[in-house]
């Protein structure tokens, strides 16, 4: 196998990894808000259901969750799945898992806003919706940024868990190539890719943090 073929294969895997990363963020960041509101809900039934959901998502390996979501439809419900489902299962599993983590980060953010901010807004005539969007959310966003950065960086590396259901992303490709060429070169290249990717993620998040640093709480 020549080097061009190896790079081409790795490049294809890289694109798949980027796709998992982007789609997971696209779905899990907003879904995390819904989960967070469910968790903070005054309805005890809803709050407990969400608590259990979060406990499962955080308490079991993401790899196992991937396997359950990929094989579950067939082994539990007897449904046959199309080949395209492999990629869909990856996005579902990652989004559900990351939404649980993001929800807890959001919750910590909301919890850290002093009650007085809500009260000041109320006395000054802000409606509940306006209080939420104009007063609370911008402050929460600033506070949770470092924790979100952590999760996003973890996500970059976690995409490699798709290997467990043989989804052809960067890591799966690199492992197969390494086996084919009998050396660790492709795996090292993959490692370098993850590192550079995360370096960029950290850089971008730092830029956003800087942009938000015009005030402190």
């Amino acid at each position, binding site marked *: 196998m020549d080097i061009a073929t190896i790079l081409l294969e790795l490049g294809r895997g890289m694109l798949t990894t980027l796709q998992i990363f982007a789609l997971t963020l696209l779905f899990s960041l907003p879904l995390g808000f819904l989960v967070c509101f469910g968790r903070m809900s005054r309805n005890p039934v809803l709050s407990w259901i969400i608590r259990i959901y979060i406990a499962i998502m955080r308490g079991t390996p993401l790899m196992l969750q991937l396997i359950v979501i990929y094989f579950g439809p067939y082994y539990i419900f007897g449904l046959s799945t199309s080949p395209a489902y492999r990629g869909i299962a990856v996005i579902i599993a990652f989004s559900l898992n990351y939404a649980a983590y993001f929800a807890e980060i959001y919750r910590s953010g909301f919890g850290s806003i002093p009650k007085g901010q809500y009260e000041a807004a109320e006395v000054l005539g802000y409606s509940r919706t306006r209080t939420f969007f104009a*007063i609370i959310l911008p402050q929460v966003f600033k506070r949770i940024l470092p924790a979100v950065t952590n999760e996003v960086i973890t996500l970059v590396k976690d995409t490699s868990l798709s290997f467990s259901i043989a989804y052809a992303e960067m890591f799966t490709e690199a492992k197969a190539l390494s086996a084919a060429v009998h050396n660790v070169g492709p795996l090292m290249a993959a490692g370098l890719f993850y590192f550079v990717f995360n370096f960029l993620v950290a850089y971008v998040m730092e830029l956003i943090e800087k942009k938000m640093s015009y*005030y402190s709480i």
Partner: protein
Amino acid sequence: MHIVELDHVKKSFDGTEVLKDISLYVDKGEVVSIIGPSGSGKSTLLRCATLLETMDDGSLSYAGERIADSKNGRSVYASKEILKKARSCFGLVFQNFELFPHFTVLRNITDPPVRNQGRDRGEAEREAMALLEKVGLSDKRDAYPCELSGGQKQRVAIARALAMKPDILYFDEPTSALDPELTQEILKVIRALAEEKMTMVIVTHEMKFAREVSDRIIFMEKGTIVENDSPDKVFSSTNERTRQFIGKF
């Protein structure tokens, strides 16, 4: 007609009676100070008057309009629209300022009237600048709250409350988070407002100041009003508990 009137207000938290049948009114142009030991119910009373807390029993009116009425031993509150209208009657200055940290000083003052009262932005900004002038902070219009001292924050908070053009301004221990020097900054502003005949209710531990600035002083203890009279009368009260409390200062 009283600007605010509270009648037979009762409030308990987890079975502890914090307000035991409190009645109180404030007239236009009056400056009323509420003093008393911690846990006497001063802040709770203020929170009931500002609708941050719901009363268990008793009635509340602003400018003659019923906000809450006592029915069968329970307070029944008026519709959302009336409560919203009532909120525009008063302003509240918090112990911890509670400025919005992500807004500049100017935006803190202009955002509520523009967004919530539908006032013109240009006009709101002109008024805000006049208010900042009044509290001596016109050079801080573009600063963020984190760049201000505690005393400056509280002066902005006062300007923010005044921008809503309230009929009555409440202060909940406005100097308790400040050192003595910064306390004087705030008292100076309140004194100036009193001279302009702004109606104010001030919960405070600053006895000397309360005596000097108030038309009336209310001494509260254990959820009841012990004294409600002119400063001279309260400070020369023969009531043993009042003398004991005032004597400590």
